[in-house]
C-alpha cells in the first residue's frame, strides 16, 4: 500500500469524524457523557497532524502508530477501544493485505476490542457494527466497498432499539433504548470513509 493511499485513508477517516463530531456528541449526550464527538475529533486531528510520519511506515506500523495516537489523545473510553482496534489490525495485517487478510485481521482486532471493553455483540456498542462488517467481509463477493457502508449503517441503526449493557449508557438501563449508540455510529462512519477510498481506487 503506497504512501498516497495511506494518506487518503487517514484524511477520509479524519474528515468523516470531524464533519460528524457534533452529531456524535449529540448521540452521546442522549445516552452517555456527551464527549464522544469531541474526543474522536481530537484523536483524529492528532492522527491527521502526524500523517507525514504515519504514512511513511509500512501498513502494520502505520496502524500501530494510529492506534497509539488515538490511545494517547482521545481521552475517553473510545481512545483505548479504537486504539486497540487499530493496533490489533496492525498486528494482524501484512503490508499488502488481500480481502482474506483483512477479514482475518478484523476478526482478531474485534476480539481485542471485546477484551478491552469486556463486551460482546448485542450490547449497544461499536462491536454491533464491526461484527456484521467482518461477517460480510468473510462472506466476500463483489462490490464489497459499496456494500459494506450500507451494512455498517444498517447495523448502527439497529442499535437504536437495543438496551446498553456496557459503558456509560448502561447507567441509563431501559432509558438507553431509542437512541443510536455513538460508538456504533462512529464505527459506521469510519467504515464508510475507508470504503469510499477503496471505491475511488
Amino acid at each position, binding site marked *: 500500500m503506497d504512501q498516497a493511499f495511506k494518506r487518503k485513508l487517514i484524511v477520509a477517516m479524519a474528515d468523516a469524524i470531524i464533519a460528524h463530531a457534533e452529531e456524535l456528541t449529540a448521540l452521546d449526550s442522549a445516552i452517555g457523557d456527551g464527549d464522544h464527538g469531541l474526543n474522536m475529533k481530537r484523536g483524529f486531528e492528532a492522527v491527521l497532524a502526524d500523517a507525514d510520519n504515519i504514512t511513511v511506515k509500512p501498513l502494520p506500523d502505520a496502524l500501530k502508530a494510529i492506534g497509539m495516537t488515538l490511545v*494517547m*489523545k482521545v*481521552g475517553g*473510553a473510545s*481512545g*483505548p*477501544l479504537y486504539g486497540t482496534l487499530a493496533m490489533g489490525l496492525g498486528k494482524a495485517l501484512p503490508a499488502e493485505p488481500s480481502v482474506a487478510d483483512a477479514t482475518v485481521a478484523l476478526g482478531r482486532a474485534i476480539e481485542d476490542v471485546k477484551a*478491552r471493553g469486556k463486551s460482546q455483540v448485542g450490547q449497544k456498542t461499536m462491536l454491533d457494527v464491526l461484527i456484521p462488517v467482518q461477517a460480510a467481509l468473510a462472506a466476500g463477493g463483489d462490490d464489497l466497498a459499496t456494500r459494506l457502508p450500507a451494512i455498517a449503517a444498517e447495523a448502527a441503526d439497529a442499535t437504536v432499539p437495543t438496551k446498553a449493557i456496557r459503558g456509560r449508557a448502561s447507567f441509563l438501563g431501559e432509558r438507553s433504548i431509542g437512541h443510536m449508540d455513538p460508538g456504533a455510529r462512529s464505527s459506521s462512519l469510519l467504515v464508510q470513509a475507508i470504503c469510499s477510498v477503496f471505491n475511488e481506487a
Partner: protein
Amino acid sequence: MSEQKNVGIVIVSHSAKVAEGAADMVRQMVGDSVPLAAVGGNADGGLGTDVGAIMGAIDKAWSESGVAILVDLGGAETNSEMAVEMMPEERRERIVICNAPLVEGAVMAATEASGGSPLAAVRATAEELMGG
C-alpha cells in the same frame, strides 16, 4: 518498614478537581507514609482521562511493593488498563486496578497500605467496600 516499601496509591478521575480532592483526603489520613499520585482530565484539560498522564502518575507513586489504582467512571478504568499494559513488563504484575468507589476506596486502600500491607491486602480492603 520504610516508606518506599509501602504500596503506592494512584487516583484516576475524569476531573482534576475530584482527583486532587480525593488525594487531599488520603493525605489527611496517611500523611506522607504512602506514595500517592492523583490525575484527572483529558489531554486538553477537559473532563476525561489521559493515558500518558496515568502512566506518569503510576511512575510518581511507584513502590517496589506495587501500586493500587482507584478509578471513577468507565473511561478512567479503560484508560488505566491501557496505561498498565504500556508500563514495563516487570512492573505490570505489581499494578492493580481496584473495583471500588474512588474516594472511599482511595482512603481505605491508603490506610491499609500505610500499615505496610501487601498489594493484595490493599486491594481487598478497597474492594470490600463494594460488598456493602
